[in-house]
């Protein structure tokens, strides 16, 4: 597609369930980023992929969060045993490279944990 695609757009899940969020970046973009946007914390950087590799996972909020990227393309962010504080909008962005070029964002996944 022409832009960054995220699915699902909205997800309501019960506390304790696992969820998987998907990001399909712009074709040819080597850099991929995940962010979390919540009222209390604003926009937080979670993780960065260069190709399939994530050099630093320390931005992930807890060990319940994991992310992977395969084939230098699609990425998934998985949250295990969801908690109410995980409720937020999860944004994915991709850019051509990691040298400050424009990051194109998806429309995000709004996650609500009930």
């Amino acid at each position, binding site marked *: 597609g022409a832009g960054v695609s995220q699915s699902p757009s909205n997800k309501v899940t019960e506390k304790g369930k696992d969820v998987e969020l998907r990001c399909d970046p712009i074709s040819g973009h080597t850099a991929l*980023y995940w962010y979390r946007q919540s009222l209390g914390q604003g926009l937080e950087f979670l993780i960065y992929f260069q190709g399939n590799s994530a050099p630093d996972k320390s931005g992930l909020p807890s060990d319940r969060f994991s992310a992977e990227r395969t084939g230098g393309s699609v990425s998934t962010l998985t949250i295990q045993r969801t908690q109410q504080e995980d409720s937020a909008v999860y944004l994915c962005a991709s850019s051509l490279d990691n040298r400050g070029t424009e990051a194109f964002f998806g429309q995000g996944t709004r996650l609500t944990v009930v």
Partner: protein
Amino acid sequence: AQTVTQSQPEMSVQEAETVTLSCTYDTSENNYYLFWYKQPPSRQMILVIRQEAYKQQNATENRFSVNFQKAAKSFSLKISDSQLGDTAMYFCAFMSYSGGGADGLTFGKGTHLIIQP
């Protein structure tokens, strides 16, 4: 760690007026990138303007321009001839050059800009 501060939570101006959104940041680095992103109610973040710290010339994009003061660590956004479609949240963001993207963008808390008809 870098920090980005936007001191105006909300601003409201009349259509066609000029408005300036303020942003300050803190870093010990000499080379970096600064951005203004717009987020309308659709949630999708859209790049408004980008500045490379080693360039002294202020970036401009049509009605949007920045006042980049490196020594003061200030990066304000000026919107001229404001339009109803400019109503959105505006985020100032910083990216390290030396980090190679690994630290992602550091965002400010945002300014909610409302353009009144």
